[in-house]
């Protein structure tokens, strides 16, 4: 009897609480949060924690026993090689992104014009460079560029053209790493642009045709404006990934010859792990952050402005 009396108010009190909980759980924002929670945890664990740890490491001296503040950064500013790496990273990322965008744009148009039943096959084939693990495809490229046994040089020799020092000369080596990056990354642009092309309403082209617009005018006044946001986001995403590239340079040239192909990530690894100067390596790797932040601010501001104009 006593038990029943004691339990009754508890049941009565928990009912509204449970319904409040149910309401909270049914809210879209709560569901969204819960569904993204695993990803948030992964980002915190695998991105944020290492990022803050890298900041901490970058403020230590070489033997990691003393706090030196911005000492490592000040040291880097005085190094000729560091500025060369900054320049090379910019050349590498910007050139590669421009070519990837250009090739992706052209190929997307070709694929868009392929009849529907054959389009899937072409799309699949063109995505192959992007879906192969880069470490694997880079090894194949390494054999093609091999200093002594390059397959390209073998063909060139057959054509009576002298061998090309693909990885032995600074300029050719830069060309080689950019070429491989473009080869791997262009399909991503292609697929994004293809999706954007498919979302352009057909009526716009019909209206332009009625107005007597030629191919170029349709491209300039219809296609490109409708694709601009996708183009900007794709370029930003690719810029970030290309700036942080490690595998292509590491496998093909290891930064050589004479450090002329090093990018931030490979030089940071070289200094930090191979040279056992982890704080300086961390400082080098952190230099990507301000450069990419500035690029992201400009690109995202442009997208936001256009979105506001359109709405």
């Amino acid at each position, binding site marked *: 009897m006593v038990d029943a009396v004691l339990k009754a108010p508890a049941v009565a009190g928990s009912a509204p609480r449970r319904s409040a909980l149910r309401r909270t759980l049914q809210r879209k924002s709560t569901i969204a949060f819960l569904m993204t929670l695993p990803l948030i945890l992964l980002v915190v664990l695998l991105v944020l924690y290492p990022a803050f740890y890298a900041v901490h490491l970058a403020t230590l001296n070489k033997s990691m026993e003393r706090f030196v503040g911005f000492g490592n950064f000040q040291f880097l500013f005085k190094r000729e090689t560091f500025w060369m790496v900054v320049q090379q990273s910019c050349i590498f990322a910007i050139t590669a992104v421009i070519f990837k965008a250009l090739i992706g744009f052209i190929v997307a148009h070709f694929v868009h014009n392929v009849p529907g039943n054959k389009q899937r096959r072409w799309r699949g084939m063109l995505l192959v460079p992007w879906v192969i693990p880069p470490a694997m495809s880079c090894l194949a490229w390494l054999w093609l560029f091999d200093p002594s046994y390059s397959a390209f040089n073998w063909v060139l020799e057959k054509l009576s053209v002298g061998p090309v020092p693909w990885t032995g000369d600074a300029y050719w080596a830069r060309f080689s790493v950019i070429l491989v990056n473009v080869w791997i990354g262009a399909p991503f642009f292609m697929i994004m642009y293809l999706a954007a092309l498919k979302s352009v309403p057909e009526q716009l082209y019909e209206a332009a045709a009625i107005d007597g617009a030629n191919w170029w005018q349709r491209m300039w006044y219809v296609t490109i404006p409708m694709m601009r946001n996708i183009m900007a986001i794709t370029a930003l995403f690719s810029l970030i990934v290309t700036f942080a590239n490690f595998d292509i340079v590491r496998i093909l040239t290891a*930064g050589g010859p004479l450090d002329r192909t090093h990018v931030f990530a490979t030089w940071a690894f070289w200094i930090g792990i191979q040279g*056992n100067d982890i704080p300086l390596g961390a400082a080098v790797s952190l230099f990507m952050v301000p450069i990419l932040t500035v690029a992201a601010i400009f690109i995202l501001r442009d997208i936001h402005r256009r979105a506001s104009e359109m709405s």
Partner: protein
Amino acid sequence: MLKRKMSRRRFLATTAASTTLAMPFVRRAYAAGKLSIGFWDHWVPGANNASKELCEQWGAKEKVEVSIDYITSQGNKNLLTIAAEAQARSGHDIFAFPTWQPADHANRLEPVDDIMAELIKLNGPVNKTVEYLARANGKWLAVPACVGSQIKGPCSRIDLMKKHAGIDVVAMYPAGSPPKADAWTLDAMLKAAEACHKAGFPFGIGLGVTEDNVDTAGAIFQSFGADLVDAKGNVSVKTDAVRQALEYYKKLAQWLPPDAPAWDNASNNKYLIAGKGALIMNPPSAWAVAKRDAPQVAEQLWTHGMPSGPKGRYAPFLPYFWGIWNFGKNKSAAKSLLVHLSQPAAIEKMVNASFGYDLPAFEKLTTLKVWEEEGPPKGTLYHYPNPHNHQILSVAAAPAPPKIAVQIYTQGIQTKMVVRFMQGEALEKTLAWAESEVEGFMRT
């Protein structure tokens, strides 16, 4: 009279202690605990088996549960593991440290003076390079491991050197006898390089920044007495010795393959095995692969000593070390195992398993039978371990303090100097660049 009240906690502690004392001692299979080891994963197929067997024997005898991870140096995986374990202060008890790592992790390694004294007494003294790399502030940081240690001297084609350069490398370095190599100088090598280049078989000496390239450059620089930083840590780039070394290298580089600045550690091996070159600088791994893949090439290979320069005959020696982390959980067992692995019989077993690739650093162990007997051609490895001590074993960038030298070494400063100068940069500009780079390595 002092009266003490027995608390509940004290009662439990006393009971537990008395129970433990009263229990009979049971010696279990792994009564002496566990030991985890991170060994270098050997290139030579099957070579890991020797160290595995030795560790298992020791584990069974000492009642220690041994677990071994063989960690490759491909992609610097061993360096990454060392860096991670040093940061986490957790991991293996024993680790196989490559050349520069003991000095880099000096404050995280358990001193091994006690076992080194015992091993030196047993196996003879170690060479000066081992001491330079693994002894800091009067303490031994690690034990020289025979596994992975190597001398990167010349490996020549007997036929091509005789035919095109007029040098009989077998007569110069006869198997079983001391070398007769007085005429084998840097000038003689330069002439031979020119002759072989003209005959279409250039010397395969790389000018990249990986170890094989840097080691050769280091030895040639040392043969001229060209130290970029002296033993006290003073920068000595702008010296006549460095200028002479660069002038020599520029002359040599014109007879090397045009793609030499892009060479890595595999390039010279492939070059020799493909029959393209008359000489490379490498341990016998290239010969071992040739024996399997190109026996007609292997039959013509002879490993021998470095040419001498104005300041001596220097050979690049790259030792590995077995070190014990000071955060290791079973240090006494680790020391016991390292003593076991450094016994003459154990060392001979490991050297045999590597077909003579591995080199002990102890003086009494450089004349094992394997080097005399390996072939074809028989005796090709006889002079590999420097049995007659006619070369000074050294490492590139020595005698600079190891923390500076490792930066010079890993950044490949010497080969970069050669390539810059070779590609037309003014000598003084190359020296100024190198000086600036080296000054940057002085930070602590």
